[in-house]
């Protein structure tokens, strides 16, 4: 037996255990034959078995308190995530509604402002500026309201978490 054969056998034992599970049939047969002939490697196999038995003999259990606390935390966090998701959906739906509404109303309002500008006899830049203010002002107002509402929701979430 060369040193390489012993080393190979010991590596197989270390990686797969003494029974050689995980080795193919030829390797398993080779290992078992070698173990029958080699005291040193048999000793290594016994030592490996002892280490594995020792490791498996230490009980280490999670306490019921830890499990319950974890479950409660996970449920609480799941609820928080669900609320955040619902809020995102609301914002998404609102944005889609606003976009659709704007795409319909802006061309109409443009024509209305154009007609009003012609009727009042003002120059194009004047009624165009008026149109711009008319379009932007509600958006600014809504933004401020949404920000205020958002802060309110954040405060609520904070209170809920605590």
């Amino acid at each position, binding site marked *: 037996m060369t040193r390489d054969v012993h080393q190979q056998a010991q590596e197989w034992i270390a990686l797969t255990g003494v029974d050689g599970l995980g080795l193919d049939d030829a390797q398993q047969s080779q290992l078992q034959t070698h173990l029958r002939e080699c005291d040193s490697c048999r000793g290594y196999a016994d030592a490996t078995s002892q280490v594995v038995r020792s490791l498996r*003999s230490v009980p280490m259990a999670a306490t019921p308190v830890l499990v319950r606390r974890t479950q409660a935390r996970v449920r609480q966090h799941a609820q928080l995530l669900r609320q955040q998701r619902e809020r995102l959906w609301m914002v998404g739906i609102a944005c889609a509604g606003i976009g659709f509404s704007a795409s319909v109303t802006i061309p109409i309002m443009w024509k209305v402002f154009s007609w009003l500008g012609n009727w009042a006899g003002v120059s194009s830049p004047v009624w165009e500026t008026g149109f711009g203010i008319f379009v932007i002002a509600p958006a600014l107002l809504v933004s401020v309201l949404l920000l205020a509402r958002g802060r309110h929701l954040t405060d609520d979430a904070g209170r809920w978490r605590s």
Partner: protein
Amino acid sequence: MNAAALYFVNGMESETSAIARGLRRRDPDLLDRLIEQYQHRLLRYLTYLTGHRELAEDLFQETWIRVLERGHQYDGKHEFSTWLFSVARHLCIDSMRKKNPVSLDGLLDDSNDARAPLDPVDIRPSALEMIAQHEHADRINAALTCIAAEYREAVVLRFQEGLTLDEIAAVTGAPLGTIKSRLYRGLNLLMPLLKGAQA
């Protein structure tokens, strides 16, 4: 593949697929069940990885929060335990990095650290057995904390958690050859330390 093996593989796939679907839905009942099912294995892994029971308990909770948040990343094609250990491992590394900002390679190398003894929960029917088991557990824990964390991790995952070499490679993100080497060296380091230790 014979019929029994095929049945087993299909059964495992359907179970992991069900877990993946539940995690995508963030099903709280499924998570409750998983927490109960994997409580001991996960805590044991974290305890041996960190060397501290209290830290392991904190990370235990954080791991399940992370599972809830990133459950959609689990594809259901592999064992859930492999993915779970991987999540726990990353959290553990993040936690250790925050406490002690060192290089990634050195995160698990605690060979120079003062080691706190691990704190196993013993189920002991009598005082004498309690003392004997406690001493036995102390000895094994002391032996485990004497070897470098990457060896300890490989040995614990292989021989305590029963993961395959491929699964350990998936959990740790290390090549298979590295895992084999860690396992072989870890076992060789443990042998003299555990000589004569019997349950």
